[in-house]
């Protein structure tokens, strides 16, 4: 039996204390009924100490009356009703439909926190996804079941990049049962609308589930939004056998909401005021990506975060980088040079690339050319720096070739239009074309037989 209490003792920020409770358990869902209009606010139990329960509200506290409001403890954690009919629908950050359509007839109710995936039950991600973007396919290959965040800064075109990935992503061999789950976490209406329009334009909207928490929605809701999205994604991937691409934007807003709640709880702050458990908290979301043994579906995750002051060592990108399997970093310098998408390839990384490339997946020469392009671009950039200090004369002819390579690489390999969908063969061939700028003896990282096979033959007039 569900008991009702009218014993709210205190509300500060997102926290509420209820006294003289009985039988309340940790993490339970709480409903507060407003006295005026019967509206419902939700929260969860953070701590129970004797007959005192501390509740964290998911929704604004405005309108709650300490003496009149009724508090109900529901005996289960926050759940999301999931169903295959969620595709094509739009939900609020708390999982209620906001597109004017009917309620979802849930096939199942799931705890939005999910359960830890058993590492023994995971299947290692190794299926190449072609995104049509050279800097990703060629150098930082994305595979199914990977979590690969985009580290961006305010004002950089990360949304365009994410939309392009969502639009172009495909696996090389044939049909796939794919879906997109999109969670807007505290972003503006315009940004969210950009994605909705993109999905509509490409017809992907029917395969998409959207969870929208906009900048003017309550910050505390944001803590639930990505978990709602991931719960839906898990259902689609592991019950409905779909390949789900999850886009979470913007994780920085999420972490700030978490900090807000932590501060209200008067916890000992860690770096920059973020709670000490930020790593664990982020990990419980990111780790929900992956593949499982014996299941066809997969969850591939692209979280987007804006680095405060473009600082990669800020706790949010830092801790994210420790959990995710690589990162795509966008560079302001490249953006100013009009190199689009402005992917800064040197610090970008895909940890799972080695398992997703090579014979039978992409092409035999992929690994070697990838390493060679990285190394050559790094050397080329160094030489360019040296050139700007000492002048061209200080560089050997080989050094100058590397510098030219770096320029051409940015101009032709990194730069590509928003609708330019390059196949992996095009990307690899383009790489070889650029490598032909360098002396053949410098191609140390590629097996000699591949150099002979793939390096374009020089035209000697």
């Amino acid at each position, binding site marked *: 039996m569900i008991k009702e209490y009218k014993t709210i003792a205190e509300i500060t920020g997102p926290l509420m204390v209820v006294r003289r409770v009985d039988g309340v358990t*940790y993490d339970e869902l709480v409903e507060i009924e407003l006295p005026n209009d019967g509206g419902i606010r939700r929260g969860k139990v953070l*701590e129970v100490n004797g007959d005192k329960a501390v509740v964290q509200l998911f929704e604004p506290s405005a309108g709650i009356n300490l003496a009149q409001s009724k508090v109900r403890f529901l005996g289960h954690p926050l759940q999301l009703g999931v169903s295959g009919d969620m595709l094509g629908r739009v939900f609020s950050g708390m999982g209620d439909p906001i597109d004017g359509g009917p309620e979802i007839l849930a096939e199942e109710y799931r705890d939005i926190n999910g359960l*830890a*995936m058993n590492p023994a039950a995971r299947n290692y991600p190794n299926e190449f996804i072609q995104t049509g973007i050279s800097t990703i396919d060629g150098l930082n290959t994305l595979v199914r079941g990977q979590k690969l965040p985009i580290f961006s800064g305010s004002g950089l075109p990360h949304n365009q990049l994410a939309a392009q990935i969502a639009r172009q992503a495909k696996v090389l061999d044939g049909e796939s049962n794919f879906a997109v789950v999109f969670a807007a976490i505290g972003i503006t209406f315009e940004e969210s609308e950009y994605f909705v329009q993109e999905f509509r334009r490409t017809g992907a909207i029917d395969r998409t589930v959207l969870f929208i928490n906009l900048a003017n929605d309550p910050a505390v809701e944001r803590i639930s939004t990505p978990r709602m999205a991931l719960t839906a994604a898990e259902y689609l991937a592991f019950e409905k056998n779909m390949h789900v691409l999850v886009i979470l934007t913007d994780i920085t807003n999420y972490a700030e909401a978490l900090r807000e709640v932590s501060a209200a709880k008067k916890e*000992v702050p860690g770096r920059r005021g973020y709670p000490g458990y930020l790593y664990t908290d982020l990990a419980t979301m990111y780790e929900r990506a992956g593949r499982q043994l014996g*299941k066809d579906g997969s969850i591939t995750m692209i979280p987007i975060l804006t680095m405060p002051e473009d600082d990669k060592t800020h706790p949010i990108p830092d801790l994210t980088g420790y959990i995710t399997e690589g990162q795509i970093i966008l560079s302001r310098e490249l953006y100013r040079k009009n190199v689009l998408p402005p992917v800064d390839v040197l610090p970008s990384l895909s940890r799972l690339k080695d398992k997703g490339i090579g014979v039978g997946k992409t092409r035999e020469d992929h690994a070697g050319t990838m390493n060679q392009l990285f190394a050559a671009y790094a050397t080329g950039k160094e030489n360019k720096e040296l050139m700007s200090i000492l002048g061209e004369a200080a560089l050997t002819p080989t050094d100058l070739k590397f510098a030219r390579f770096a320029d051409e690489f940015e101009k032709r390999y990194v730069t590509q239009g928003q609708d330019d969908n390059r196949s992996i063969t095009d990307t690899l061939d383009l790489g070889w074309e650029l490598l032909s700028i360098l002396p053949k003896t410098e191609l140390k990282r590629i097996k000699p037989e591949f150099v002979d096979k793939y390096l374009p033959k020089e035209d000697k007039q």
Partner: protein
Amino acid sequence: MGKIVKVSGPLVVATGMQDANMSDVVRVGEQRLIGEILNMTGDSASIQVYEETSGIGPGAEVVTTGTPLSVELGPGLLENIYDGIQRPLEGIMKVCGANIKRGVEVPALDREKKWDFVATAKVGDQVVGGDVIGTVQETSSTVHKIMVPIGMKGTISSITSGSFTVADVVATLTTEKGEKKDLTMMQKWPVRVGRPYKKKYPPHIPLSTGQRVIDTMFPVAKGGTAAVPGPFGAGKTVVQHAMAKWSDVDIVVYIGCGERGNEMTDVLREFPELIDPRTGETLMKRTVLIANTSDMPVAAREASVYTGITIGEYFRDMGYDVAVIADSTSRWAEALREMSGRLEEMPGEEGYPAYLASRLAQFYERAGMISCMGSDERQGSLTAIGAVSPPGGDLSEPVSQGTMRIVKVFWSLDSSLAYRRHFPAINWLNSHSLYIDSLKGWYDENLGPEYAKRRTWALATLQEEASLNEIVQLVGKDSLSADDQLTLEVARMVREDFLQQNAFVDIDSYSEYDRQNQMLGLIQDYETLCRAALKKHAKLYDLFEIDARVGIGRAKTVPADEYKSVYAKIHSDMEAQIAAIAEKGDED
């Protein structure tokens, strides 16, 4: 039996716990969640619960088991994957599918499986704790020695060879007081207490890892301690995996502590297919995995390093060389911090508890080269290698600092090397190994006295490169003398042709000691020959472009069975080519 009064995340407070002891394992609530007592005040106990406490509330029952957190030790450990409190993950998967549900009870060692026990002791033998009474061929590469539990002493009154489960009695012991004690193949040990040994020795044998930058430049000794700090993306995990794969030890315990699930899966799927170059068996047959990934409960993460090192000590006590690899100790420290915060302890630096450094020291101090308990003179070693993940790559934070004070080897990973795809991205200027002196005897005996000299030469060359580079930044390469330019070129060869090693290329992923010695020898001889040629006015750029250089550049890709002859050929080619250039130089 106690009752819960407070629940706050993984911390539960219960009253009525007067029967419980400090550090006892308790069962919490109907789900019988596993917890451990951290503090006691009067009859109330603060308990850290190793599972998600959702749905637990005041009034629920708490039962103490009366024993501290312990692991089960016996046949069946190898090839297994456990969570932080030694629950078998494969077993859990069979019970509850792909996700880990709460309160699952699966014994750590399979109670059904029968092992062939071969008695090596006889009735009437006087035995003490640590003595081997029999063996079990646990995997095709490892013999599991069944030892008398520590603290027991007496005469064997019965012992039988045959097929038994770990719970079956294989022998009985009559103590001096005439009591009979049944011995099974399984024993228990509390994880927070180091297993005893007779004597500890200073380490003096190198742990061969097949990684050139480690073995030659910054070696770790068997029984030593090492740390790998580095920002994300610098290749910590690849280094740790390489260590787990190629270390010349008998047993590897790999602890994935608060790290990615896919990394553990990678080990789990890859190791059964990799062949150990020394035994010819797969690597999984000598490996125990402890996986407490970042999405699993935080309290069990704290326990996972102790679980791992206790299992390591158990194999060490059999007289084996064991490597315990923990990735990452920073996550473990964070788990400590989280529990400390919930206990409302006074925080030290960056919110970490004041006892962080002493806990780190206690962990690493469990490493060592020892002679084992028991009457024979077995020797075993336990090498502890920990990864550190400093926030923002900043080594001034407490976990890095606390670790650096204790460990003897420090492999500093550098993200700028990683960006250039120089792997392993171990920075040769910031890293150190304090075992060089104690290992010198072994090097001189096994590889000849020139080996240690070569190492010193290579490090000096790299150091000189760093100082020369500062000049180059100001005035350009051309203004350097030919000798200095040669130094730069040779340093580049050391970096690119020796230190860089690709863990994903089969031939290159492992280099034995002799091969490392010869590779470095080629580069050193190239320098010596070139310097001599320069004295004869040879042209520097001609020396750089000799064909033998291509051979040196590709030396790491020569198959293991051919390298000796190929290197000898490169060497003679090099001599001839440089001599030819030197002659020309004299003519000019």
